[in-house]
């Protein structure tokens, strides 16, 4: 009998929600588990990186990697799995776009350390300790991974074969991705597993959308009771639907929550945030410059909103310097 294909699942700078989405495959997961040999899944099973290091190059058929690359350990594991895998799937918004943690790129590493280890009101740190990459304790050296200045998407650090968006990706698309690999019916390299159209195209609220949206005031979702069937933008609530790839199953929309953009930009668009910015301003109805500015001033943290999941892969996001990606 032919050996089962080997699959690795791991998390880098991630919250674990993507692993949870895999568990949520329920019975389908058991069927997949019958067909493959899971060689790494730190959140669920006990394996050692040394087992992976001992494998032949490209011995693993598929590595599903979740999370952004934030520190030297993430980078090392990413390179290791790239070397040992035939295919690498960037799994979820963080691996694909940089994700929520990519918002940290709007401030510096020093700002983060100062706040977390010194300035936050709940911090008790009289000796002013901050994490070091190496320290001597009782004559022994202890080491920690180095936190980088910047958060990177997986594709900015290693060569990625396929991208699966979502925070987390929905079960049907996970199944599509895994089945594509198992059946050998693969999309072109670099493809994103998901529809090519914007969320608005499949949004159930689109049917009641007026021909022209005119926003006179910006409202935040927690400040108003949103109409459950009307377009959010028509109600002045910022919804990323026009600039976001569909395929999520409208899970947020169906619980009366506007789209936050976790599926990233539609195909052919590098910077969904900037495109959304243009779309939103064209919908703002104001008679004068002052009025337009007043409405725009009421948008809280626009950069954080438009780039909530995609700061690292935006036009002004930064790629990992090439010398660090070799290996």
């Amino acid at each position, binding site marked *: 009998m032919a050996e089962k294909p080997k699959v690795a699942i791991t998390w880098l700078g991630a919250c674990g929600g993507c692993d949870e989405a895999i568990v949520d495959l329920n019975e389908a997961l058991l069927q997949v588990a019958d067909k493959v040999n899971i060689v790494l899944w730190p959140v669920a099973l006990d394996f050692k990186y040394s087992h992976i290091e001992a494998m032949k190059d490209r011995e693993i058929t598929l590595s599903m990697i979740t999370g952004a690359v934030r520190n030297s350990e993430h980078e090392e594991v990413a390179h290791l799995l790239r070397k040992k895998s035939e295919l690498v799937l960037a799994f979820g918004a963080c691996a694909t776009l940089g994700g929520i943690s990519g918002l940290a*790129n*709007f*401030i*510096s590493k020093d700002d983060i350390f100062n706040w977390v280890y010194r300035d936050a009101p709940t911090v008790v740190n009289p000796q002013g300790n901050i994490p070091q990459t190496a320290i001597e304790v009782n004559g022994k050296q202890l080491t920690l991974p180095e936190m980088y*200045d*910047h958060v990177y998407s997986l594709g900015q650090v290693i060569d990625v074969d396929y991208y699966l968006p979502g925070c987390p990706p929905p079960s049907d698309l996970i199944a599509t991705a895994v089945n594509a690999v198992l059946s050998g019916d693969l999309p072109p390299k670099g493809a994103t597993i998901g529809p090519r159209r914007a969320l608005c195209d499949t949004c159930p609220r689109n049917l009641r959308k007026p021909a022209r949206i005119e926003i006179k005031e910006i409202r935040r979702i927690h400040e108003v009771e949103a109409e459950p069937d009307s377009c959010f933008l028509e109600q002045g609530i910022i919804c990323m639907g026009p600039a976001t790839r569909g395929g999520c199953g409208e899970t947020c929309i169906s619980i009366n929550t506007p789209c936050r953009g976790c599926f990233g930009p539609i195909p052919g668009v*590098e*910077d969904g*945030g*900037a*495109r959304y*910015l*243009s779309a*939103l*301003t*064209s919908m*703002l109805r*104001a008679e004068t*410059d002052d009025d*337009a*500015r007043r409405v*725009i001033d009421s*948008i809280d*943290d*626009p*950069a*954080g909103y*438009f780039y909530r999941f995609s700061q690292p892969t*935006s*036009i*002004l996001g*930064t790629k990992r310097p090439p010398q660090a990606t070799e290996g």
Partner: protein
Amino acid sequence: MEYNPNIVCFSCKFGWGYVGDKQSGNGSPENWVPVVCSGKVESTHILEAFKAGADGVLILACQEGHCHYQDGNFQTGKKVYLLQKVLETFGIEHERVRMEMARNPEGDKIVQLVKDMKQDISKLGPVRRF
């Protein structure tokens, strides 16, 4: 070495000289992109300019109420105002994007406006990013 900021200038052909790619009079500035309407200037164009090394972006639009396409200049005004706020979060000062709304069909003031902006940007220094 003296800091010489790179300014990218987008100008509307209707309000700032409908002369194609060659400007008369005072010569033409570097990095000059005449467009059919200031409304054609996308936020991604401005971001790409900064990515390519611009220190400032100047957008020359028609004066208020005089857009050939009804309100392209007004639409761009809104876009630029919101983009300036977003750029501040990226560490790029809002002064690095400037929009002028006026009428100069000969386009002979463009070179001077670029020079003026260069001077102002010189005080800011190069773009600092985290």
